[in-house]
Each structure stands twice: as C-alpha cells, then as structure tokens.
C-alpha cells in the first residue's frame, strides 16, 4: 500500500485486538468473540462490539432497546461473564522491539 497509508496501518496494527466472552466454568470453545480497538494502553481501555454481551445480559437483549437506554453499567451482565483481550506485538514487547530493531541486523561476510 502507498505511503499515504503508513500512519493508518500503524494505527490499525497498534490498536487492533480481539475480544472473547465466555462463561465461567465452561470451555473457551463455547465463547463469543469480536474485534476491538485499544483506546489506551496503561491503564488498558478497549472499545469493542456489544453483540457478544447479549447472551450475558441479566434482563435479556430487550434491555438494549428499552426506551432511553443510552448506556448500561457493567453489572448489567451476569457474574459468570469472563472476558479476554488479545493483541499483536507492541513497541514495548520484546518481540515488537526485536522487529523494530531489524534494520540493525547485518549479514557479516563469511
């Protein structure tokens, strides 16, 4: 992709993550998952799609269309909700650093 996409690609790669929601005590394979955006790293804040939370809503999905509902607090979902977020290497992680350092690699002459 052309140079115009450099900043967007870097932002996308740094911010992209995947979020999975599962029930406590059930195998991970029975989870729901979607993509997300890392808004802040430390402390960590992630924004993702709400669709994976409907199975956990205490009042069912009807709570989403209740009149005037613009937001629902976290405890609108049951206590058995388990969330995990996963993302690629970052500038801080050793693997990320190694990648950034690649130009430093050299091919010594034999």
């Amino acid at each position, binding site marked *: *992709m052309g140079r*115009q*996409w*450099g*900043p*967007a*690609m870097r*932002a*996308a*790669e740094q*911010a*992209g993550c*995947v*979020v*999975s929601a599962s029930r406590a005590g059930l195998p991970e394979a029975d989870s*729901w*998952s*979607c*993509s*997300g*955006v*890392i*808004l*802040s*790293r*430390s*402390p*960590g*804040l*992630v*924004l*993702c*799609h*709400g*669709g994976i*939370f*409907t*199975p956990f809503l205490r009042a069912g*999905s*009807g709570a*989403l269309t209740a009149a005037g509902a*613009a*937001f*629902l607090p*976290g405890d*609108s*979902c049951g206590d058995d*909700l*388990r*969330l*995990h*977020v*996963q*993302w*690629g*290497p*970052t500038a801080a*992680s*050793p693997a990320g650093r190694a*990648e950034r350092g690649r130009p430093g690699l050299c091919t010594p002459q034999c």
Partner: protein
Amino acid sequence: AGLEPGPPARPRGRPLQPPRPAELLLLLSCPAFRAHFARLFGGEAAEQWHFASAAPDDEVSEDEEEDQLRALGWFALLSVRPGPEEEAEERGPAMAVAPLGAVPKGAPLLACGSPFGAFCPDIFLNTLSRGVLSNAAGPLLLTDARCLPGTEGGGVFAARPPGALVALVAAPLCWKAREWVGLTLLCAAAPLLRAARAALGRLHPGAAALAALLPPEMGAPWGMPLRDPGPPWAAAAAMVECGTVWGSGVAVAPRLVVTCRHVAPRKAARVLVRFTTPKSAMIWGRVVFATQETSPYDIAVVSLEEDLDGVPKPVPTEHFHEGEAVSVVGFGVFGQACGPSVTTGILSAVVQVDDTPVMLQTTCAVHGGSSGGPLFSTCSGDLLGIVASNTRDNNTGATYPHLNFSIPITVLQPALQKYSQTGDLGGFLELDRATEPVRVVWRLQRPLAEAPRSKL
C-alpha cells in the same frame, strides 16, 4: 472444510500477546446512530434488510437474529489489566479520532478487524481491508471495504487525517432483499466516544477519571478547513425521478443530464432531477431523447428547465485503461433517503467491437437505483461511462453487485456535443442503429465466429 481451530502457529511471524483478562465497564450506544438506523432500515424497509452475520439462507433462530439486530448499534468499553510491558509504556491514549464529518464520501478508509474473532488470531488478527466512505447519515457510515463476521468492533482508519480513527464496524454484512449489498455498516467513533465520556461520568466517581484516557478528537490546524471537500466529481451525480420510477443520472452540460432509458423511458416526459452537493437543488426537465427498447444502449437524455449552478461538469474521457481505479456514484441502496453512495473498484474489462469500446465492466458495488449514474476514473475524475446494470444469474436469481456494465462515454460524446452546440438530436439516432455485434455483446451472448453457412 469445517472451521476447526488448529494448533497455534506463527505463520505471520509475530508472536501475539497472551490473552489478558478484562472487565466490562459499560455497554453504550450512540443515540443518533440508532435514530438514523431506524430511519434507513426500520419501518417498511425492515423486511428487506438483514444484518445477521450469517447468510439469509443459514439457520439462525429468530431470537438469535433479533438479539443481533438489537445489539447492532451497541459497543462495550472494557478495562484491561496491563501486563509488565504495558506498565512500561507511557500512559494516555494511543490514537486520535476524526471528528464527525471530517472524512467526506469517496475518501479512502482502512478497516482493521479479525475475521471470525478469537477463532484463529494467529492467522486473522488485525486483517486489513481497504475501501472508501461510501455514504453517511449522521454517525451511521457505510464503506465498501470488505469485512467479514468477527470484525464487528474493529477500527476503521483514515488516510487523511493520517491514521485517525473514523469508526468501528457495526455490521460487516448487509443483505437487501436476500442479496449481499457489498457494504459494511459502521458507527462513527467521535460520537461514540462522546457517549462513552458522558456515560463514564455517570457511572461511578472512579470511572470519571477514565474519561480523560479516551482519545481526543482531532482539531483542525489553525486556518485549515476541517471538512475535506472530497472528490469534486462526485457532485455531478443526480437522482432522476420520472413518475414512480427513480434512478441516477449525471450532469454533462449546464442544462443536460444523461440517465438510462429504463429510468426515463418516454420522450417528452417530465423528470425531476435532484442534486445534493454542493448544495441541494431540484430542477425539472424533459426527456428529449430515449433510445428504443431494441437498442443495446440503455440511454435517455434530459434537458433541464434551468442552468445547473455550482454543479461541476465532468470531463469525458477519450481513453480507457483496464485495471485503473474507478468509482461509481449513484442513488442505489437508499434512493433519496440518503445522498448518493460512492463505491470503488477497478475497470475490469473494456469490451470492443471493431476496435471501438462498446461496454465497460467494473468491480465497484453497483445496486438497483444506481442505473444512469456516472462511472469516473478515481484518479483524474474523468467521466468514463454511464452505469447501465449489474448482473443477475437467471438460474439462481442471485445478483452480483461487483460485476456491472456501463456504456462508454465515447459512444455518447459525439451526439452530446452536437446537441449541446446545435440542439440537433440527430446524433442520438445512431444509438438506435447499433450493429448486430454490439447487440450481441450487450445481450451477453457469445459472438458467432462467423455467420452460420446455409446448407441448401
């Protein structure tokens, strides 16, 4: 093959961070997004639209589909416990957010999501897809960047402002009348994050401090206009209404609009032409010419009762380059409920008869209602052709938006020029006298190598 997770692999050579536990802070939605969604896709239209991540024919229970529809415009804000690396990182937001309206229709966008979610992140994490902003109704945005189930919540970034977060994916697949539209539904990030700030302020005292961590909206550098006007050629597209039929058209001269015959079939019929940019304008006109049903060129020409002020007239091209980036602008999908949609692709074929281009094919997403609209070269903005149709498989009934046919502007240009200069319609009559090989092309038939020889 079934989608079964395989053993962890590192084919993209980048070790992923281990999954981190997270906590749900709140679920939030953008009221304006939901209002526009209800306006465009609710009411009578609801029957036609389908957003579930499965194809219309797949088994999805009605409850499940209803859940998905209810959750479509909802997003979740999570707090994630940082690991040792994140502790070392500087605090604060990782990106900037484009204000609503800063990215115009037709502007390039980059979507980043993980198809199938957490199913196989080694392979699919942060998969990129490129497209443009195809349409916008408040914070409800549409892009023709291809997105798949699992990318819901993924970020969509702009080339300009560079790397700014523009939106999040709300529904990767839209089906209208059981056909895939080829557009992805987005929720603009700026209003969503404003809603998040407001909600955090009402959650509990500790949560309010988190609002400061949310990425800021970009301001315009001093003196710079915030709103990028976008490609000027898109403004030449018009919506054309003739009785109960409507479609698209393009202004080619101060008082002249071209559309398709099946949009404005009757000569002398009164036609209402609407433009939306640079400002909304409605002008009446009359059909001065329409090809016969038997002509392969589905064209009608409308003469307006007044000049088109401020609407750019595109430059007709003289050459076609297969593979070049092209854009279609048309009122398909939403008609007048929304301004024109812009979709992009490439000029996939230029079909010629006797070395003369007689048909253009593109990979842009073209929908019912786009007929008569303009096909532009994305780079130069030159007018390449008039969109005539997309493709329907008569056996299965399926429609293919990304295979479509346009009439090269070079077929029309001599007649348009003559009529603009002298008012003589004679040049258009040639369109009714197209040769048999041209007819064969537009009937999508295979040309006979040579005329069958009589056996008598």
